[in-house]
């Protein structure tokens, strides 16, 4: 069968909402796009543990500490679900990890911002996880089966992340003057980077069109960003705080909030590796990987020894 026929069958499946599974034929570019997107998503979960891990030892109470540990452990789990989903496309775990450490693979730029105060942990849960959820809920319906299934699992767990973050901010917003200021300061610093998480404007994004046709993505960057703004602009009222945007205003005609211009120079700056913490994050990842080398080696040696010891019994 000529390649064009395979492509037609493939697109028909997508149009008919039939999921693509690992052994099915798929265009090379579909495979590549999925590998890139899923592995970047996995790297984001893994690197995302670092800014939060920063506050585990300094959480304000035992309760908050236990919650934060559970959340960070979830992020590790999410990374693992996604790495396995990417592996079904023919890339190995080790290749992906090497690509992350060499700087070839990207992860979400949001994790290159520092966590300066405890309120940042709340703001990350509410805004950063909130923005991630908008993307992830859409991705539960993505066309590649293993990715969609990983996202269903992740979404079930992600709601706890956002709620605990909002609740942590809620406590601060009802606290002392200093606590209120800390809450507002965290919102000020995380708001714009959170909006950047949705990626470039539709007019500039290179991945969106083909990804929409293949139903890898089902909503555009701008649509998702607008949904997020509409949601957060209401929720911030409950906290009695303000979003740092003078132009943020309900537009009755559009039935959406209007908002100010995002600083795209900053966005590209951080994507290209010059954010406040890019180097620190990658160094921490590499150190963890290198420090763990002896554990991986020992476990492999132990498994080999055990297998050899069991061999004569089987014979």
């Amino acid at each position, binding site marked *: 069968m000529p390649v064009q026929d395979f492509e037609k069958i493939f697109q028909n499946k997508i149009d008919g909402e039939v999921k693509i599974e690992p052994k099915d034929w798929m265009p090379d570019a579909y495979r590549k796009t999925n*590998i890139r997107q899923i592995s970047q998503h996995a790297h984001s979960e893994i690197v995302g543990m670092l800014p939060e891990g920063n506050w585990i030892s300094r959480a304000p109470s035992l309760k908050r500490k236990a919650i934060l540990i559970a959340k960070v452990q979830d992020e590790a789990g999410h990374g693992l679900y996604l790495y396995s989903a990417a*592996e079904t496309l023919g890339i*190995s775990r080790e290749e992906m990890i090497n*690509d992350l450490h060499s700087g*070839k693979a990207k992860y979400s730029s949001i994790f290159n911002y520092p966590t300066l105060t405890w309120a940042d942990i709340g703001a990350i849960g509410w805004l950063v996880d909130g923005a991630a959820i908008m993307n992830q809920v859409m991705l539960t319906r993505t066309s590649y089966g293993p990715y969609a299934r990983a996202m269903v699992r992740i979404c079930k767990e992600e709601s706890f992340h956002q709620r605990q973050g909002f609740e942590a901010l809620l406590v601060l917003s009802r606290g002392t003057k200093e606590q209120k200021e800390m809450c507002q300061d965290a919102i000020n610093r995380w708001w714009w980077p959170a909006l950047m998480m949705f990626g470039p404007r539709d007019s500039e994004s290179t991945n969106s069109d083909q990804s929409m046709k293949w139903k890898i993505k089902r909503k555009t960057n701008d649509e998702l960003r607008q949904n997020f703004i509409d949601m957060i602009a209401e929720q911030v009222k409950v906290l009695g705080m303000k979003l740092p945007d003078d132009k943020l205003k309900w537009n009755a005609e559009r039935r959406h909030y209007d908002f100010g211009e995002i600083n795209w120079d900053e966005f590209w700056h951080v994507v290209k590796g010059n954010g406040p913490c890019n180097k620190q994050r990658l160094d921490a990842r590499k150190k963890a990987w290198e420090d763990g080398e002896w554990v*991986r080696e020992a476990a492999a040696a132990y*498994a080999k020894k055990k297998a050899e010891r069991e061999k004569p019994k089987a014979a």
Partner: protein
Amino acid sequence: MKNFIRKFYYGDIPEEKGGGKTDFKTSGHDWPLWEVFIRSKSGLDHKHAGSLHAADAQMAIENARDVYTRRMEGVSIWVVESKYITASNPEEAGELYEPAVDKIYRHPTFYQLPDEVNQM
């Protein structure tokens, strides 16, 4: 593990931007891949939950507990090394399932019965 279910019709994954290059250095300690099956409660079948890497079966069970049952999602875990799973080929689905296609009399709805016994 790299060749697990790997199949390309026109060209390998090119190096640029796609993720995945062919010249990566391997440490030789890349643990094998395991498929994880979880029984969510007694009385139900084990169901495929996902996969993970582990050095041996015991570690695969323990990793599966941490990765797939953090919220009491399971009462029993099976793990099997992925290389031991043989899968049917989707391209041969037509021939493989052909014997079932024309046997509609295997379905209860094939039989038209009088109303009196139609709850049968």
